């Protein structure tokens, strides 16, 4: 906390007396313009290492992706051929690319809606309701977030196993044999099997994030609302949601970007894009083209599409959720 106090009069006079006159201070005191210039130089010197790192590791590789998307290159040979927008023209005729794009959009929508919805719901329940064992529940839900994504993929591969898997075993136990599936082998449901793993992995993190925001809301607001006759749902939409909006907004934008990345790792580890490319997502298809199929330029063209799509969706989400922050 900062407190401001005015100095006593005599000390102010003493300071004024001891201060050098403007004419005789050329050597001692610096003019405001020179001081500002010096400050600017210092700020730039402090920023320079971060700016250099950002340029070397972010700007240059991104520009390189854009540049390489205009070439055909195997990735190994020294011959690179400039083909202009040919790689993008090929994308228009590539059904595998369209399928990967569709899968990416489906995962983005389904996983974001379910994770954000469930995260908010669970956080509201755990914060507002006095549940028994809520600390244990919070701990259990948070555990997947500290596990490696590859470990999660291994866990879910075991859960989905056709013969000895937990899911089919439980269904057999409940005499629901007809509901048994080849969860990672059926083209229609394989993507949703991956989506469940994605939700399981990220739910705890977002729940804890929202819980910490909700814990900061003053209790008096809820007391006043309940005295006015507001229901729990009304309190959630009129008090909780507006007061955690900035957090929700940031996490939503962040989640959209991380969902694209997370889907790649889980798909690679759980299905490898199969069966018959039915669970391929944009990043895994780009990886396959650039590093397995030796079509580096084509892979970079897919990378440009991913960049543009992620950037556009994040920008639109940021615009759609912008509002004045509330203070309480």
């Amino acid at each position, binding site marked *: 906390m900062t407190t401001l106090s005015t100095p006593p009069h005599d000390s102010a006079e003493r300071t004024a007396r001891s201060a050098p006159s403007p004419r005789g201070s050329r050597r001692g005191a610096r003019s405001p313009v020179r001081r500002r210039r010096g400050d600017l130089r210092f700020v730039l010197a402090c920023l320079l290492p971060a700016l250099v790192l950002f340029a070397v590791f972010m700007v240059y590789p991104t520009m390189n992706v854009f540049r390489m998307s205009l070439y055909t290159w195997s990735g190994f040979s020294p011959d690179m051929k400039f083909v202009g927008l040919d790689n993008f023209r090929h994308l228009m005729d590539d059904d595998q690319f369209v399928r990967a794009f569709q899968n990416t*959009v489906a995962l983005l929508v389904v996983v974001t809606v379910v994770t954000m919805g469930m995260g908010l719901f669970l956080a509201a329940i755990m914060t507002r309701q006095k549940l028994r064992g809520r600390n244990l529940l919070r701990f259990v839900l948070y555990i997947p977030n500290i596990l490696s994504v590859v470990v999660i993929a291994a866990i879910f591969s075991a859960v989905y196993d056709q013969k000895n898997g937990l899911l089919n075993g439980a269904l057999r136990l409940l005499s629901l044999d007809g509901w048994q599936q080849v969860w990672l082998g059926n083209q229609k449901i394989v993507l949703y099997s991956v989506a469940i793993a994605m939700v399981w992995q990220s739910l705890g993190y977002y729940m804890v994030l929202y819980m910490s925001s909700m814990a900061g809301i003053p209790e008096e607001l809820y007391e006043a609302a309940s005295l006015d006759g507001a229901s729990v749902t009304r309190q959630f939409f009129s008090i909780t949601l507006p007061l955690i909006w900035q957090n929700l907004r940031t996490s939503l934008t962040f989640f959209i970007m991380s969902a694209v990345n997370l889907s790649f790792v889980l798909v690679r580890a759980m299905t490898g894009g199969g069966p018959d490319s039915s669970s391929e997502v944009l990043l895994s298809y780009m990886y396959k083209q650039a590093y397995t199929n030796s079509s580096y330029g084509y892979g970079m063209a897919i990378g440009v599409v991913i960049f543009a799509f992620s950037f556009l969706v994040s920008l639109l989400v940021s615009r*759609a*959720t912008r509002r004045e922050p509330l203070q309480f």
Partner: protein
Amino acid sequence: MAGMAEMKDSMRTALLVTVRTLVAAACVALVVIERSTVGWGHLGVMLLALAGLLLLLASYNRRFR
């Protein structure tokens, strides 16, 4: 008179919430259904559904700006 207006207002709010929920559910369902067929047209419909969800979010947020 004031009670009637209040009731009208709460009815309007309830209707708005119901419509928004239905539109959001329809957009998610559209994404899931269109994903099953491969093609640019189907991808376009999926992107439109995604845009619909974002518009819904923007319309909910508009009164708080």
